[in-house]
């Protein structure tokens, strides 16, 4: 047993210590990803203003919701004439995957108190991906990757959101600049990397049919929510992914 607390700390940190080179590499990877993803914030800011939200509402979404797909969905449904309720439902359904990310990260991050409440807001696709990629470095690597990437994306995403919103506001009619096409383009770019395997493609094709059938007969916003049933139907039974 080591009774001296400083020695005890030294031995623990020596055991789990991340080499400086690795720390630098994780920081570089995390921050470059954060900057790239942050730039998408420009597209979000512009899309949000084009959908009829003002500057404050747009920034509030990036600061508070802080989950790209959920934010795009909310402004997309509102801009398409959907009700506030259907916009909320779509955004929350898309945000549900963050709960699974948190579940995956929690045992390694071991956050408690204020750090947990702060860290929770940073649980998104990118911070999870970078953190999990450091698994071979143990909990310390995962911890570092999570905070660097999460905080990096938070800062850049919000700055670029503001830039996009201000630019779109200065430009005027969104259709003139093709901003109305930027929103579906952003959605398909988010969708594309997930279309892996025949089950994913089949689910997507079925969704297209369902939406085309529903649009003329149900209120705006409902077809998107109804598509969640496709995920339920295809995911319920085991099958080749």
């Amino acid at each position, binding site marked *: 047993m080591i009774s001296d607390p400083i020695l005890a700390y030294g031995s623990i940190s020596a055991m789990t210590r991340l080499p400086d080179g690795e720390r630098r590499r994780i920081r570089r990877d995390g921050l470059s990803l954060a900057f790239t993803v942050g730039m998408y914030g420009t597209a979000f800011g512009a899309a949000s203003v084009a959908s009829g939200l003002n500057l404050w509402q747009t920034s509030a979404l990036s600061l508070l919701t802080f989950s790209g797909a959920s934010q795009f969905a909310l402004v997309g449904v509102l801009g398409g004439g959907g009700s506030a309720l259907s*916009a909320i439902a*779509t955004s929350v*359904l898309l945000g549900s995957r963050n709960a699974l990310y948190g579940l995956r990260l929690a045992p390694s991050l071991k956050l408690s108190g204020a750090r*947990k409440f702060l860290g929770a807001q940073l649980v998104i696709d990118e911070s999870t991906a970078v953190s999990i990629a450091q698994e071979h470095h143990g909990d310390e690597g995962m911890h570092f990757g999570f905070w660097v990437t999460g905080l990096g994306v938070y800062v850049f995403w919000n700055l670029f959101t503001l830039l996009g919103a201000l630019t779109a506001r200065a430009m005027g009619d969104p259709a003139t600049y093709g901003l109305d096409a*930027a929103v579906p383009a952003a959605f398909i*770019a988010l969708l594309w990397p*997930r279309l892996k395997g025949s089950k994913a493609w089949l689910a997507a094709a079925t969704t297209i049919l369902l939406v085309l059938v529903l649009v003329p007969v149900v209120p705006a916003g409902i077809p998107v929510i*109804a598509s969640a049933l496709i995920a339920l139907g295809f995911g319920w039974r085991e099958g080749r992914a």
Partner: protein
Amino acid sequence: MITQTSIWIAVIVSSAACYALKLAGMSIPQSWLAGPRIQRVAGLLPIALLTALVVVQTVTDHQSLVLDARAIGLAVAIALLIARASFPVVVVGAALASALIHHL
């Protein structure tokens, strides 16, 4: 037309719910959501929702189906994705294509 109040309600409620989901993931016992069925549905959820959003945003105007410049924008976006272009290139490319059609 949706009111400013409704937009604010949507912004606040969805932010609160999205945060609650993140916090719940960090807090609940591992076993609760570990089932393979939940994992499968959760993996397919973004695929179904994003596909639906693409369709709604491209070929509908409120409750009617329409074909306009946005469809050209989407076609360009898909072509750019197949060519492995980055996210900003895809979005800007689609916007430029749609704007070009709009001005013709």
